[in-house]
């Protein structure tokens, strides 16, 4: 794919990794946003908008070299937010320190991440997600999972599965190791390096049978989970079961137990999940229970949530032939006498018709109906005259 947004000659273009979103794409993104945020709100989640910029010195889910940072005029290091979850953790610790009970928060907003050049990666993209702060336990976990599934289904996504793992189960596989060794093993697993993880475990004194057991447990997916003993595995199955009770969906097997799931970020403590689609090489959404993140801001509270990568969702939707439901057509009104045209346009709009006076150079995939002014209450389409009300009925 050709790189977009790179400087060419003297023509200014946005910096690498940033780009213009033109109307056709923007309309589709608005449709996705509407479907997602309406579903969030159906589960009782309230929208919020943290600032674009945060202090860089604080907690971050990403390493410093993944942040887009700059110095403020007063000398403090600030960063464009790399995600919303961290901002919400800070905000909840500050603004809801005394709140008890369940906080349900949602967002749809751009985030910013530094990416190496020439990998086709975008440095700005929209995330949509929720955080459920306060409750712990299977019902809260299942709520987040069901909401994710239902949001994606309502946005039109089909053929995706939600892979559900459990960080606690993976951790317990290495419980015989010394804590520092176990942390290294878990870090290797988070980096996707199974070879390195098992080598460290062996060097740390884990027996061959224990390693073989850990290896086969990590490979458990789907029904394989039934062979895995322990409370964590039971909890995982119960969460999926409850989530499917909350949202059946067209494919009842949308939630798949999968213990190989280890998100790259270290703050997860229990259930974790990732949405994968056969046509997209990256996860579309990810989330889980992260009871440790709020503690980092001095207000320890359980929390579970997810973030949907909106461009990847859009990619999967587009690949499967999805297009946004078409809005009412635009009437392109070829102007006649200026005063008559103005009054007619006002009447048409009053009747619920979208009117653009003159041509429409960028229809963005919407249907455009050419019309000419007859008088203050009539237009002509294809040579036939209609009243304002007739046209409104026809286009409704």
């Amino acid at each position, binding site marked *: 794919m050709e790189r977009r947004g790179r400087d060419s000659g003297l023509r200014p273009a946005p910096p690498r990794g940033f780009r213009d979103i033109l109307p056709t794409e923007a309309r589709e993104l608005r449709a996705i946003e509407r479907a997602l945020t309406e579903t969030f709100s159906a589960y009782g989640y309230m929208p919020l908008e943290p600032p674009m910029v945060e202090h860089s010195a604080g907690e971050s889910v990403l390493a410093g070299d993944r942040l887009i940072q700059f110095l403020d005029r007063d000398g403090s290091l600030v960063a464009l937010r790399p995600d919303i979850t961290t901002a919400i953790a800070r905000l909840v610790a500050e603004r809801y320190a005394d709140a008890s009970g369940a906080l349900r928060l949602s967002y749809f907003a751009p985030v910013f991440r530094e990416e190496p050049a020439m990998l086709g990666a975008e440095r700005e993209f929209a995330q949509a997600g929720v955080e459920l702060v306060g409750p712990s336990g299977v019902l809260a976990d299942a709520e987040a999972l069901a909401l994710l599934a239902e949001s994606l289904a309502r946005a039109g996504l089909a053929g995706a*599965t939600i892979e559900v793992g459990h960080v606690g189960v993976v951790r317990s596989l290495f419980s015989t190791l010394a804590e520092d060794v176990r942390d290294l093993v878990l870090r290797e697993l988070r980096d*996707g390096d199974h070879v390195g993880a098992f080598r460290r475990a062996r060097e740390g004194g884990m027996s061959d049978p224990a390693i073989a057991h850990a290896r086969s447990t990590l490979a458990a997916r*789907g029904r394989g989970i039934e062979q895995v003993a322990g409370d964590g595995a039971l909890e995982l199955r119960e969460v999926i079961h409850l989530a499917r009770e909350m949202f059946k969906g067209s494919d009842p097997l949308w939630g798949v137990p999968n213990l*190989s799931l280890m998100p790259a970020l270290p703050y997860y403590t229990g259930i974790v999940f990732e949405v994968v689609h056969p046509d997209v*090489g990256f*996860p579309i959404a990810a989330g889980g229970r992260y009871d440790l993140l709020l503690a980092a801001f001095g207000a320890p509270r359980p929390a579970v949530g997810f973030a949907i990568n909106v461009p990847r969702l859009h990619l999967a939707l587009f690949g499967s032939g999805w297009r946004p439901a078409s809005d009412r057509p635009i009437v392109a009104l070829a102007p006649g006498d200026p005063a008559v045209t103005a009054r007619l346009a006002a009447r048409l709009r009053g009747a619920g018709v979208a009117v653009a006076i003159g041509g429409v150079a960028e229809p963005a995939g919407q249907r455009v109906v050419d019309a000419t002014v007859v008088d203050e209450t009539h237009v002509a389409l294809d040579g036939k005259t209609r009243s304002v009300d007739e046209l409104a009925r026809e286009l409704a």
Partner: protein
Amino acid sequence: MSRPLRFALAQGALLKDSLAALGAIGHDVSGITADDRRLVVRSGDIEFVRARPSDIATYVERGAADMGIVGKDVLMESAARVLELVDLKFGACRFVVAAPRQMVARSLDEYRHLGSLEVATKYPRVAEQHFRRRGIAVEIVRVAGSVEVAPQVGLADWIVDLVATGATLRANDLAVVEEIAPSTARLIANTAAYHVRRREIAPLVEKLSAWAASR
């Protein structure tokens, strides 16, 4: 599933052993040869793609290929996020820091006076991370080939290179200052494909893992 499982193979030194491993676990790979101009070859349920080693990690990270065999050295330099599933144990080599045999003491003296060493390498990421971990200030000079010559022509004090036997270092009168990391071939998978296509991937992982363990 819209397309067959796509398996990326690194051209060059690893290709022969990779094909031998796949052949040993029962895949017909006779249609894939190093000098074939076709880069994509279908064999049974798998579509094999040959590519430059350094591109394999990119293919698999972005899901253009579901699986691949590539050296750990390539993964270390690319920092691609892929799943490393099996150590296949062939293609052994190691990243080393090397310097002209007679010059190690002198370059350390220079380091004390000048505060920084120049290091030539084809692997800037591996080199930079290594020296940062060791707390040594270096300037990385990126070269595209024949890094062994860099100290002789005064381009750099030291080099970071990948060596198998060390013969090239010896021929150029270079000595290993320290080892950075060993490397062997790895079976890798795209993270999403490992979930979605587990039914196709799991048997390959199991068989190649048993094959590697038996060697």
